[in-house]
């Protein structure tokens, strides 16, 4: 048990008044913002010093992006004050242009530059008040800028021909050239490989030594310890704490983000007395184009397994790779003792795997089609184009599953988009159960649905496993995972770093494994 630094109970506004701490270049005080009835940010303080890299961390819905967007003038704040060095009194930032003029530059994950323009054009586009532009002079200027920052790009080459990392760096160079004192990097590394990330870090260190304050939004724990000086953790729209990176252990940091206290009381794992079934699925070297380290996965009959890890750690990407949902999926997979090839969803469905996507709206329901059509879709595709179900067969299936899962709908003909979130989720579950899968993968099936439907789905998953189905269950709520899963695969920074089962299953162990480093959990695979 420990309590870290300042918690939200400490009075938030310590530095009342129009003065700032000596070294800081930015102070945000008591920032609040609501969207309709949702409080996205509540009384959050944030400070940034000259020449430091501040990590901003938090799970889904923590309020990171809202805070960034308030700072960069995309959103307005409901209350609170922002102080900048060199400005007496609070400043109002009402537009991105204004933020730019105040020296706050942002580089987003998706680079909003023009790939078919040259590097120099991208750096200087839209920043000239003069009518005539000497491109020769601009190219020279760009050359100087690039070489001073050590960016390996020529000013005249088209931006699109550079690698993503270099494009990120050029976006940063553009920001630097605008003489920013505060640089916001919003998840710049999520699509970069190790080498590219290291190059980016080199640039960040260089800027730090020149006195720029950098806010670095990331999900990668290792990167926080690699490059950041301090870390601000948000959770559920509140400030959890500000720490010096050297003062906080990884486990503590993970605990702060998940909002759990570390203790060693083991959670009653139900699986202990349950006989372990035979191996249903064994995959080696499973990989996809989604930037995850190839992993090995064993799934047993009648077992509920889960993927644990922080947001962005690659949980979803792993199960998508098992199902073949993303491009470039491959691996050596053995199911029921037979070697199978799973490269696209139809392969997986043929082999008895079902996958419920975390993105219900975009990848789950077919909104305008009826509940009935949504339920029979996967089985119909499996059965084949020339053998459609008759209307009465389809009605039979729909009625059966509407009753079995307790789907609340006016009729089977109702467009599925008119149903509540929980009932939509049940419709998709019905669709997959109808295919009688041997292995059911559920990615965040209970997110954003009402408590009743959530309990229904949890109960159903347990029953399915008791009947011999293998289930993989993913949830952002650690407690829910512990209540359901008897085996957990733990992910960190897009790598599978461990496996926990039986007595090893406890919040403490999970967090330690996620954090890695000091504690070897169940040991890496």
């Amino acid at each position: 048990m420990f309590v870290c630094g300042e918690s939200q109970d400490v009075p938030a506004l310590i530095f009342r008044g129009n003065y700032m701490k000596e070294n800081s270049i930015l102070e945000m005080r008591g920032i609040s913002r609501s969207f309709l009835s949702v409080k996205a940010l509540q009384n959050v303080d944030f400070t940034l010093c000259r020449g430091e890299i501040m990590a901003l961390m938090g799970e889904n819905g923590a309020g990171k992006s809202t805070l960034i967007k308030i700072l960069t003038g995309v959103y307005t704040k409901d209350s609170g004050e922002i102080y900048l060095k060199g400005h007496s009194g609070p400043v109002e930032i009402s537009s991105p242009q204004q933020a730019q003029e105040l020296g706050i530059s942002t580089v987003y994950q998706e680079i909003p530059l023009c790939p078919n323009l040259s590097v120099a054009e991208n750096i200087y586009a839209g920043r000239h008040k003069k009518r005539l532009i000497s491109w020769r002079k601009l190219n020279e200027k760009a050359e100087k800028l690039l070489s001073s920052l050590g960016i390996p790009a020529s000013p005249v080459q088209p931006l699109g021909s550079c690698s993503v990392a270099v494009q990120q760096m050029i976006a940063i160079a553009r920001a630097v050239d605008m003489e920013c004192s505060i640089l916001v990097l919003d998840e710049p590394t999520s699509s970069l490989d190790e080498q590219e990330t290291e190059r980016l870090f080199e640039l960040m260190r260089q800027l730090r030594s020149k006195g720029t304050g950098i806010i670095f939004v990331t999900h990668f724990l290792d990167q926080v310890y690699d490059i950041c000086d301090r870390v601000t953790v948000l959770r559920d729209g509140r400030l959890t704490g500000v720490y010096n990176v050297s003062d906080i252990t990884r486990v503590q940091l993970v605990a702060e983000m998940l909002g759990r206290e570390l203790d060693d009381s083991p959670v009653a794992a139900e699986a202990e007395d349950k006989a372990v079934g035979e191996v249903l699925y064994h995959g080696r070297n499973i990989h996809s184009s989604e930037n995850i380290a190839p992993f090995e996965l064993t799934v047993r009959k009648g077992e509920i397994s889960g993927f644990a890890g922080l947001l962005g750690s690659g949980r979803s990407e792993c199960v998508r790779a098992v199902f073949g949902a993303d491009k470039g999926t491959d691996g050596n997979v053995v199911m029921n003792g037979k070697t199978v090839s799973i490269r696209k969803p139809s392969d997986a469905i043929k082999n008895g795997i079902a996958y419920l996507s975390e993105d219900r709206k975009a990848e789950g329901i077919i909104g305008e089609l009826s509940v009935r059509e949504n339920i029979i879709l996967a089985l119909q595709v499996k059965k084949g184009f020339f053998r459609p179900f008759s209307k009465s067969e389809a009605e039979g299936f729909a009625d059966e599953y509407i009753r079995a899962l307790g789907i609340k709908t006016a009729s089977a003909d109702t467009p599925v988009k008119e149903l509540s979130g929980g009932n939509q989720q049940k419709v998709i579950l019905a669709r997959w159960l109808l295919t009688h899968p041997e292995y059911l993968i559920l990615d965040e099936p209970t997110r954003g649905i009402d408590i009743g439907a959530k309990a229904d789905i949890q109960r159903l998953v347990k029953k399915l496993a008791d009947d011999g189905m293998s289930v993989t269950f993913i949830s952002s709520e650690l407690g829910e995972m512990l209540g359901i899963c008897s085996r957990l695969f733990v992910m960190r920074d897009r790598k599978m770093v461990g496996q926990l089962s039986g007595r090893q299953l406890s919040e403490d162990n999970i967090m330690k494994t996620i954090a890695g480093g000091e504690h070897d959990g169940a040991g890496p695979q």
Partner: protein
Amino acid sequence: MMAQDRSKRNFLSFFSGKQFLIPLAALLALVIFNLIADPEFFRVTLGRNSAGDPVLAGNLISILDNGSELAILAIGMTLVTAASGGQDISAGAVIAICGSALLRVLCGSDLTSGQIQSPIIVAFLVCCLVGMLCGAFNGALVAFFRIQPMVATLILFTAGRSIAAWINNNELPMVADSTFASFGGYIKGVPMPTPFFIALICFAAVWALLRFTSLGLYVQSVGISEKTSRLNGLDPRIVKVGVFVIMGLCCAVAALIKVSRLKTINYSIIAKDIEMDAILAVALGGNPLSGGKFRMSSSILGAYVIQFLTTTLYKFDVQSDALSAYKAAAVIILVVLSSPVVREKLMKLLRSLSEPETAGKQV
């Protein structure tokens, strides 16, 4: 209470849910207009055609006759719209290509004698093959290269008529064969024009396709959510190429009728602007042009409504160069009235009218 709810639902869905009612209402409006203006419009008489056979004549017959090509194209356009969320604007040009290929096979090297050199069935099969190839070309651009359907089909729209002319070395072959002429005219002893029957065969074929295969479900799934379809084991690309191939086949059948009517071909004029009418038929049928759900019968009825409108305008001696303007005016009214915005307003009005009624019943 429940029963009352249901009856209210039915009453409202009578105006909103049933897509079919949009073109039907338009048809009704045209019929009423003609009844008031000139009831003679609907007279069908038994006359004799140029060959001296007894045939039915009248405006209604000519609508059913001349609307055939449009109705057949509406089938393909409906599927293309639903699956790809875009439209095929190359239909007219593809008809020219198909027609040209048909004549090329039919006439062989002898372009002027009018004698056919190969069986009609062979020529028609080649024509279908060419149409499907054109469709597959469009479909591949849309499905594999992810080009906007309108932009992808712009290629054949631009090049198609030149290709058609090139197939026959820019010459105009003539066909004088009476059997061939019967596809666009009359079969001996049958008083209805043949294109009407060809259209009926096409309707039956597409009905069977929707009834005995999963085409409808696949097309709508892909049109609404490509990602979801993929995760359910469908290959959206194959579905998209498929609907464009069907569109090509529709063009081939339309080409047979058109060429048979003319007994020759005019590369730059044949089936000109027919794709726009076909798109209009789909829209008039209440199908969203952004893809997704569709109703085939609605589109087909929409096609005949457009033909009805054209024939009505001819009847009122509208100058042929002013025809388009009148047509556009009528179309604007039809489309605005059937647009979701206006429909919603009408729904609200109807609901507010029906609400006090049901409230009164409850007391």
